[in-house]
């Protein structure tokens, strides 16, 4: 298993600003992911955070809007840039030790953009 913490747990931001979300894991993990959960909806994968290289983004998500860093095997950040109200969502970090096994999820960051 893995214990995952995210900071901040929630935030209210003004449109046009940026917010950086941190994800910290209590052990080294092979893979880290970032998801978005829009109000009342399911989870959508934003990108896979690769240690030491650029993240791999899913269709519909771009680096300029969602820059991701992963400096080591236990930490990653997701920045939501130039925010608009449509970015209001829960952002979740997840990790996996094995590409063919379960992912463990953090508690999420609830973002509201005014």
């Amino acid at each position: 298993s893995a214990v995952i913490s995210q900071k901040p747990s929630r935030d209210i931001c003004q449109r046009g600003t940026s917010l950086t979300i941190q994800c910290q894991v209590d052990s080294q993990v092979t893979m880290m992911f970032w998801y978005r959960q829009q109000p009342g909806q399911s989870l959508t994968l934003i990108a896979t955070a690769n240690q030491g290289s650029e993240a791999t983004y899913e269709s519909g998500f771009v680096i300029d809007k969602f820059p991701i860093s992963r400096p080591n095997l236990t930490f990653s950040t997701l920045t939501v840039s130039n925010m608009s109200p449509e970015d209001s969502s829960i952002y979740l970090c997840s990790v996996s030790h094995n590409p063919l096994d379960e992912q463990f999820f953090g508690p999420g960051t609830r973002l509201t953009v005014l």
Partner: protein
Amino acid sequence: AQSVTQLDSQVPVFEEAPVELRCNYSSSVSVYLFWYVQYPNQGLQLLLKYLSGSTLVKGINGFEAEFNKSQTSFHLRKPSVHISDTAEYFCAGLMNTGFQKLVFGTGTRLLVSP
């Protein structure tokens, strides 16, 4: 086409009654399947998973699921629900692509009433 389909957006049930939450997957999804639960204002917690072996999988909190390859289904069941089972339930599967990607169904809200 939806890769993972949860036909029921909401399932109301009385306490101590049995429940089945349905999940079907498409050919683009591998047979690595998962059920997650999300309690209000919390992250996702793994209920159970199917990776291989016995098609009947037992998970936490008395839940079980049956993998049915011919019907491409992975339905979740519990013989007797509690009020505390009220939550959102997500079925998920790993895609068949060479790069690990977990795709989620749209979720089923289980509402248990006294």
